[in-house]
């Protein structure tokens, strides 16, 4: 299928920025560095480094073998980084990256109270309090800095209900059977280049298990922070929802401002059994690079869920405002009959950011339903692509899909692209696709101005209106934060 491409006309004769573009120039507010000693591996990637990571984490033999298998597979692919995405970047030197960096804490904390005050302050500066009393009630947090988790809140309260919420490192030690059973069951180590790399070197992440029939009473969330220089962050998240259970999970992420690019290659796997529901929300705000496109995170992430059981549901919601490059396709395999997959996305690109993001909905079971709502906002000189696949297998009787892809352009030097792929092998299915492209008009801004609203606030109102359908999917606690983030990412794009 031929991709549809919307490219706003380039006007090389006129280098002056339009009024609209002038509003996109604001500073990244999470760009600070915490001065803390780190325990690091030497840069480079080889079997010794993998043995080093595995030993640091005191992993069982099977885990090391699994990593080495992934590494050998990645080594075979090493020269074949995927090139199909609509993004451009110079080759990544994998041998210059530090694959393990842990903040050195004087003593290993046994409880949240014992966490190094400097680390605690870092998270407080980010608006994440690890102090359970001060926390928003109803949210449990796992805080991950560079390669390791430094603490998880509300562990005990959740434990009483049989819910396991801990770092991946702890899960491998304490719940090896569950990890062994489900790890790489949704995203195999051979799935793709970055998934293989992640499997070889991942250092931490969150693990979450909701037992049969339990409705998790609070939002679970992981907060990822890159701090150390020249490191990559490779985390692994695994969520298992047993029969009839429900969980809502949120992840947030930030990084310091640096001139060099840093690599973040995560893998997230979700498993929903019969009648289970998983809602996974992301507010991604990695450092996007400066106004000239220098620095910023390369965010190459594989996220996939499987609706393994009948009547199960997986819903992805993402608000993507950060990263120099985003390469990410949260997907759902609809295996169980009557299962539902959803993908709600707002992706904002500004300055020289690039995003190639979307989803895959694979309909395998009968009466499966999927819904895709993608809102792309491009400003400055950025490029924003939606790439999606809707696949209906031969036996997926009565599959339904609805896709909607809207793009909003600010200024005339950015691009919005849509690459929808549809493969249907069952003639009882119904697949719908709608797409629109629009621009913020000077008329809309003037109308707001005339009512006393300045241009920046006007853009924020227009953007949030455009993204409302997706924002409505976010848990209440984070919706307000996400709205502000949208406005901040586009500050300076209108004058």
């Amino acid at each position, binding site marked *: 299928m031929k991709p549809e491409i919307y490219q706003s006309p380039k006007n090389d004769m006129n280098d002056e920025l339009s*009024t609209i573009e002038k509003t996109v120039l604001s500073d990244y507010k999470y760009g600070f560095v915490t001065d803390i000693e780190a325990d690091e591996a030497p840069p480079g990637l080889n079997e010794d480094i993998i043995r080093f990571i595995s030993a640091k984490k005191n992993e069982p033999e099977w885990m090391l073998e699994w990593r080495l298998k992934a590494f050998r597979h990645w080594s075979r692919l090493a020269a074949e980084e995927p090139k199909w995405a609509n993004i451009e970047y110079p080759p990544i030197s994998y041998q210059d990256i530090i694959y393990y960096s842990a903040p050195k804490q004087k003593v290993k904390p046994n409880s949240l109270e014992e966490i190094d005050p400097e680390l605690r302050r870092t998270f407080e500066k980010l608006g994440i309090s690890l102090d359970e009393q001060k926390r928003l009630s109803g949210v449990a947090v796992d805080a991950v800095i560079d390669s390791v988790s430094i603490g998880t809140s509300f562990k005990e309260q959740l434990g009483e209900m049989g819910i396991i919420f801990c770092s991946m490192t702890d899960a491998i030690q304490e719940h090896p059977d569950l990890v062994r059973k489900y790890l790489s069951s949704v995203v195999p180590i051979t799935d793709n280049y970055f998934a293989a790399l992640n499997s070889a070197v991942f250092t931490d992440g969150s693990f979450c298990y909701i037992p049969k029939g339990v409705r998790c009473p609070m939002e679970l969330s992981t907060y990822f922070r890159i701090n150390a220089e020249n490191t990559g962050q490779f985390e692994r998240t695994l969520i298992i929802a047993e029969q009839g259970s429900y969980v809502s999970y949120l992840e947030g992420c930030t990084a310091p401002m640096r001139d060099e690019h840093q690599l973040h290659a995560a893998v997230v796997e979700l498993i929903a059994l019969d009648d289970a529901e998983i809602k996974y929300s992301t507010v991604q705000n990695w450092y996007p690079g400066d106004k000239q496109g220098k620095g910023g995170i390369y965010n190459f992430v594989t996220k996939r869920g499987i609706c393994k059981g009948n009547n199960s549901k997986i819903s992805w919601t993402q608000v993507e405002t950060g990263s120099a490059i985003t390469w990410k396709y949260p997907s759902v395999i609809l295996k169980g009959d009557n299962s539902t997959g959803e993908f709600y996305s707002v992706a904002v690109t500004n300055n020289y950011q690039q995003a190639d993001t979307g989803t895959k909905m694979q309909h395998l079971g009968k009466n499966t339903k999927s819904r895709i709502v993608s809102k792309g906002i491009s400003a400055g000189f950025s490029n924003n692509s939606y790439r999606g696949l809707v696949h209906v297998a031969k036996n997926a009787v009565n599959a339904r899909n609805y896709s909607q892809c809207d793009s909003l352009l600010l200024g005339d030097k950015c691009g919005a692209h849509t690459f929808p792929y549809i493969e249907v092998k069952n003639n009882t299915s119904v697949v719908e696709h709608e797409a629109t492209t629009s621009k913020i008009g000077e008329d809309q801004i003037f109308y707001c101005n005339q009512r006393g609203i300045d241009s920046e606030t006007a853009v924020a109102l227009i953007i949030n209106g455009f993204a409302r359908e997706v924002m409505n999917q976010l848990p209440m606690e984070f919706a307000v934060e996400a709205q502000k983030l949208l406005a901040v990412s586009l500050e300076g794009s209108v004058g």
Partner: protein
Amino acid sequence: MLKIQNLQAGIEGRTILKGINLEIKAGEVHAIMGPNGSGKSTLASVIAGKTDYEVTEGRIEFMGKDLLDMLPEKRAGEGLFLGFQYPVEIPGLSTTNFIKTAVNELRKYRGEEPLDAVAFLRLMKEKMALMDIQQPLLSRSLNEGFSGGEKKRNEIFQMAMLQPKLAILDETDSGLDIDAIRIVANGVNKLRSKDNAVLLITHYQRLLDFIIPDFVHVLYNGRIVKSGTKELALELELKGYDFIKNDLNIAETV
């Protein structure tokens, strides 16, 4: 309240307003009439501060301040309101949310505390009753899918909510049937007071049957060529704009 002196303005090098003089005092309703292309909407846009237009000569004073020096949002803050001829649509932004933002931005400009949800709702209920406007319309995205009449009523409702000192209504009657005109005019009449003023810009006399102006001005070819009372509007209706043109030709040839 508003004092315009020798205002000359244009767009892309073309002069549209060729020396406008106009004074509006508190408590007055003025109407500006004129044929298509005479510069009526340009005048409204220039007063409100639309950047597409370039002012080449003259000055506008509003509440004793130099208006041309101010950004459009500051002009709104000073109490200027423009009812748009073509109100824009903002998908996904509820009308209520938009108005709440506007009300509080104006309050901020004037150094007042923002209204909380309860106080805002109370104000809105009061004005809704006054304007005979229903909640469902205000819950919808701003102007999106509104009929012509709904858009214009929404403009007048915003005017009621924002309580401006001077409201300029740019062809608020265009495209409306007689019932809709009556509703809009009712709204405007209810808001008239000795402290505020209204400038109506209209092509037709019929709006002036419902909103009785104190002064009527005829704008032609970028100049106010004739001023009078409401009888001037009736004369125009009777004789058409040609009589103005003829008058002018005679004046120019003499």
